[in-house]
């Protein structure tokens, strides 16, 4: 089942912060985050495995709450280069891992 991302779209000014959420109704083993710029392929940002760990990548970090089957992507002090569509991909946890199921994406626009 497809994870639900929120918000669907967000507009930020440079320097502002944003949070993108990803929720699933299934027990998750991993959550992946990708960013896709217009006309390009999705690019990997980070993976979170069950265990509630938080990861960081420059000014972009993410958390995984396995009890709630939710992940959040945090973008701090946004830059123009952060613009794009962010996708979460989730893998359910039962007898081995399963293929990723991607959410519909969150379109992030950073303006000067």
């Amino acid at each position, binding site marked *: 089942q*497809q994870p639900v991302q929120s918000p669907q779209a967000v507009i930020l000014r440079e320097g502002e912060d944003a949070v993108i959420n990803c929720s699933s109704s299934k027990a998750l083993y991993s959550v992946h985050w990708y960013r896709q710029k217009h006309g390009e392929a*999705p*690019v*990997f940002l980070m993976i979170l495995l069950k265990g509630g760990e938080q990861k960081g990548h420059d000014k972009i970090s993410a958390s995984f709450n396995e009890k709630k089957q939710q992940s959040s992507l945090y973008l701090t002090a946004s830059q123009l280069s952060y613009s794009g569509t962010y996708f979460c991909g989730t*893998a359910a946890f039962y007898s*081995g891992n399963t*293929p990723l*199921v*991607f959410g519909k*994406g969150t379109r992030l626009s950073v303006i000067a």
Partner: protein
Amino acid sequence: DAGITQSPRYKITETGRQVTLMCHQTWSHSYMFWYRQDLGHGLRLIYYSAAADITDKGEVPDGYVVSRSKTENFPLTLESATRSQTSVYFCASSESKGVDTQYFGPGTRLTVL
């Protein structure tokens, strides 16, 4: 060149024609995937493969055929293209199904008239 490549990058075809989209990766990743991307739907899995000669259906397999005779290649065939198959198609590869990074190819934009 190392990485994952797709060809053609753009394709226009007519309803009813057979079309094959090619995907090639140089990392020797076990898993390869085909996704289609449509506005409002995100990325949807069509088929995936765990190894040569091992393939499995994804979420939207109808109308598509795949094969994998070699680890590095994973072609996707539309046997009789329909307008609803107009989309952007991405191939990806990974070491596993769900716990390793998936690396995406540049995509093929397919238009079915």
